[in-house]
């Protein structure tokens, strides 16, 4: 007899005694209800799972991939920018950028607020960046470039716990080994904006891309820009990369070599700043801006192009702060971002006399020997026109040497009486009133006034008429005419090289960043040969050589300077301002290799301020770029 049997019997006895233990008759029904309920519940679950897995499965696959796959853009380093001697002007450095992967954020509002605090970028800016990539949900979005090492270590420690969607990646950033040098030429890089995205020029760019915003960075963006790579990685819930799914290497952009000579550029910038100081020392205390161009007159290669005041291009690296940007644009900063050499428009004043002279000789208004008498005042018209001196009897050479206004008033008046627009025509042929075609963005065209322009521009009836005074004023580069320093340099280059109007340029060639192989020649081939007689030009050249002598308008600035130079002062009168000082020169006079144009805003007389600046620049040029040839061997 086993224990089990015994218990069976005991139970049986007990049950029998109790009598209440018989199963209730309706239990089967209730068990059926329980079974039915089970079937119903199972059906509900199965139906729901079917809906999730079979009907909406594709959507959930996409969401699962969205969880785990991140595409991390690997920004291609831009091409480097070199000067003509392969000295780097713009390089790249390995920066760090903060990225956000919105889908991985658990509590976006709070995480973005904390991130904003950590990196010092307003939440709205971060959200703007994220909004740019709303449809590209796999991508992590760069929200801040160029963080400090402190910010990096702060974030790295907290990413797993507080910022699951945040990451830090390498991001190539611009660096400027020569600091402010050539800032206006180089320009800067920034994120493409909405308007630019609409521009056909940027048809193959996407939101968030870095583009050149100004200067060479803008002009040669298509060469400098590389091809971004991308890394597709699988991450876990904490955002830790687990494995790499795909890796497309970025292709660096190509290098651009400029015609700029860094040493010349620096010397020019220093000379220009020195010119401002000189103006201040000479009592022209409001002198506060200027420009200088140093160019090869024969092919238009720009060796140096300077604008004062300047700025630090490094401010834009990683995005310029609002404070810095406002500071640059504040009243009193005097537009440091403006490249005055190509975008500043000024009356050329006496430097324009070479154009009037060309027109007068070529249109036979005067002969080289025609002379006029300068008594200091010219009162042919109702209103007297003054000369800066009393030069007596002057022919054309003397008129250029002495910068005699009255000679040119007479010439201008003859053009008026002949109803001729010869001066305007020649000004245009020399390149004024239109773009020089320089390979820099933002070039201004200046203005060559003529009757038609006056008709459209004038407010009153009298203002709409071309008056004799207009021609007279134009003859000495005053009145309504405006030129840029680069236009003036191009004009003097054309005189120096016997009538060839070159296209000024800063681009030399494009080289492969990896191999250094030349990929493209950036030098423009086009130039215009003016139909101007050599005799005409010789008269003007003689005048320009004479104008550098001690008896002319520059004092002894160029006394003893070798080689011989040719040049012209200009002192532009601007309503309500102190005179603007010009000097334009080329050298050597008999075999021109360089042309220099200098402008000092409110610098006073061209001879006093602009000429010494030109001399410094030419000294630098002959020291640096054309060192005196060693004396030929004896015998």
């Amino acid at each position, binding site marked *: *007899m*086993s224990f*089990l*049997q015994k*218990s*069976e*019997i*005991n*139970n049986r006895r007990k*049950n029998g005694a*109790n*009598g*209440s*233990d*018989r*199963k*209730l008759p*309706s*239990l*089967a029904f*209730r*068990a*059926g*209800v*329980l*079974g039915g*309920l*089970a079937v119903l*519940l*199972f059906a*509900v*679950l*199965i139906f*729901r*799972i*079917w809906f*999730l*897995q*079979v009907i*909406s*499965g*594709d*959507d*959930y*696959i996409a*969401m*699962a*991939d969205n*969880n*785990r796959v991140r595409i991390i853009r690997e920004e291609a380093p831009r091409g480097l920018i070199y000067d003509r001697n392969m000295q780097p002007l713009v390089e790249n450095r390995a920066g760090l950028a903060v990225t956000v992967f919105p889908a991985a954020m*658990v*509590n976006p509002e709070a995480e973005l607020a904390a991130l904003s605090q950590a990196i010092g970028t307003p939440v709205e800016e971060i959200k703007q960046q994220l909004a740019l990539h709303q449809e590209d949900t796999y991508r992590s979005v760069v929200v801040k470039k160029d963080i400090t090492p402190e910010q990096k270590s702060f974030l790295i420690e907290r990413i797993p716990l507080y910022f699951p969607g945040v990451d830090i990646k390498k991001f190539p950033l611009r660096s400027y080994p020569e600091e402010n040098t050539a800032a206006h030429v180089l320009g800067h890089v920034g994120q493409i904006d909405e308007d630019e995205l609409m521009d056909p020029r940027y048809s193959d760019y996407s939101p968030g891309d870095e583009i050149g915003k100004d200067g060479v960075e803008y002009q040669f963006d298509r060469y400098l820009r590389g091809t971004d790579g991308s890394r597709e990685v*699988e*991450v*876990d*819930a*904490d955002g830790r990369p*687990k494995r790499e799914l795909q890796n497309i290497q970025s292709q660096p952009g190509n290098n651009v070599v400029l015609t700029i000579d860094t040493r010349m550029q620096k010397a020019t910038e220093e000379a220009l700043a020195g010119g401002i100081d000189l103006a201040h020392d000479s009592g022209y205390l409001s002198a506060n801006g200027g420009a200088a161009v140093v160019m090869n007159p024969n092919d238009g290669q720009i060796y140096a192009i300077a604008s004062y005041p300047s700025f630090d291009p490094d401010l834009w690296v990683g995005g310029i702060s609002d404070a810095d940007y406002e500071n640059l644009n504040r009243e009193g900063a005097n537009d440091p971002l403006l490249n005055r050499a190509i975008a500043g428009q000024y009356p050329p004043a006496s430097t324009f006399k070479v154009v009037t002279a060309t027109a007068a000789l070529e249109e036979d208004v005067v002969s080289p020997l025609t002379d006029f008498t300068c008594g200091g005042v010219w009162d042919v018209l109702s209103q007297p026109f003054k000369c800066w001196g009393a030069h007596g009897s002057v022919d054309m050479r003397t008129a250029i040497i002495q910068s005699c206004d009255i000679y040119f008033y007479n010439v201008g008046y003859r053009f008026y009486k002949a109803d001729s627009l010869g001066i305007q025509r020649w000004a245009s042929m020399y390149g004024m009133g239109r773009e020089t075609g320089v390979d820099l963005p933002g070039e201004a065209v200046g203005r060559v006034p003529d009757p038609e322009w006056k008709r459209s521009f004038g407010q009153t009836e009298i203002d709409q008429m071309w008056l004799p005074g207009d021609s007279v004023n134009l003859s000495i580069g005053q009145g309504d005419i405006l030129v840029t320093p680069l236009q003036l340099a191009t004009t003097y280059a054309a005189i120096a090289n016997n009538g060839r109007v070159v296209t000024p340029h800063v681009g030399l060639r494009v080289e492969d960043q990896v191999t250094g192989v030349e990929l493209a020649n950036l030098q423009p081939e086009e130039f215009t040969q003016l139909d101007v007689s050599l005799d005409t030009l010789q008269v003007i050249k003689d005048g320009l050589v004479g104008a550098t002598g001690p008896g002319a308008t520059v004092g002894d600035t160029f006394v003893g300077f070798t080689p011989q130079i040719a040049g012209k002062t200009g002192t532009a009168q601007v309503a309500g301002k102190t005179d603007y000082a010009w000097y334009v020169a080329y050298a050597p006079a008999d075999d021109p290799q360089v042309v220099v144009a200098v402008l000092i805003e409110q610098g006073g007389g061209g001879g006093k301020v602009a000429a010494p600046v030109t001399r410094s620049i030419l000294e630098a040029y002959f020291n640096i770029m054309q060192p005196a040839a060693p004396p030929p061997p004896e015998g």
Partner: protein
Amino acid sequence: MLTVEIRTYIRHLDYALLAAVLGLIVYGSVIIYSATHGDPDLPSPYYYLRIQMFAAVLGLIIMGMVAFVDYRGLRRYRMHIYVGVLAIIVMVYIVGSAVKGSQRWIDLGIFNLQPSELAKVGMVLVLAAYLADRPRGELEAQTTLTTLAYAALPALLIFFEPDFGSALVLVAITVAMLYLYGIRWTHFAVMAVAVSGALLLVLKALPAVGIHLLQQYQIDRLLVFLNPEHDPGGAGYNLMQSKIAIGSGMITGKGLYQGTQAQLNFLPEHHTDFVFSVLGEELGFIGAAVLFGLFMIIIWRGIRIMLIADNLFGSLVAGGILTMLLFQFFVNIGMTIGIMPITGITLPFISYGGSAMVSNMLAIGLLESIHVRSKLAGDRRYRRAQVTV
């Protein structure tokens, strides 16, 4: 003689039930291994699997022993069991260890015991014994009230550990057993009104005067269920990730160990509360269907055992166990697919957890015991043996 008896007992085990349970345990172990083997913080990739297997083996032994014990004998020990249930729950309050702000475990040195799991099975026995002992057909309100009182004490104690899920299971068991016993519909109606009133009191009236019976996270979970946008960072995030996991499994799944949601930790609690999400992601609709199939076998065999049990006590025990398993199965899976609130109820035989495994195996042991007894009653050889007494 003894060997003959044991052979007779073994012959009368419900093998379909046993096979389904074993199938679930193996299935669950594979999923637990898949969900946990990649965890870098573990001493070994088999860490959780090993513990689960150990619990399963322990559970099988207990099941075997219980299956051979005459369950009817337990009826007399109703009060002993009840006091035991209350004692281990109270122990939690005294020596329990807290995990995630909730005190549910007793540290026994080699493993942590979760008394609420054992309490579920214990209460099935207590309530079945009490109801079976009522005079025949007694349907007085006193029976209902006493049953509720029996259940309320452990349920409230568990609720305040807090273990909302286990308390809910107890409520479900109690309601189902009252129904199976056959109390009047009016009693259910009164109960429904009382529960609604109590909920209003707890959720609205008492908080208004500064008394908070529910923890904030419990209220949050309820609110999240009603409106998943309520807290996308917390419980809503978990639910979303679970739905993504299951949905992205599609028909055939991503393959064992290949579930990106599970393997890359997007799924929370992927070896306990959300183990079904791992299964759904890696094995797809087909894998889920296999799980449902195995579970349906258990329900089917359970109802059959309820019907063939040779007394009311056995039927009620079987019905209580069935309700316990079915309720947990439905609520757990329902929670992973967003049709039930997230209550921390685990999936029987699948979710990682030793106490639950042992308790559930104990419950299966009881079902087997009921099955064996009812079969023995109709067995001729057994009857012959009885004659020889």
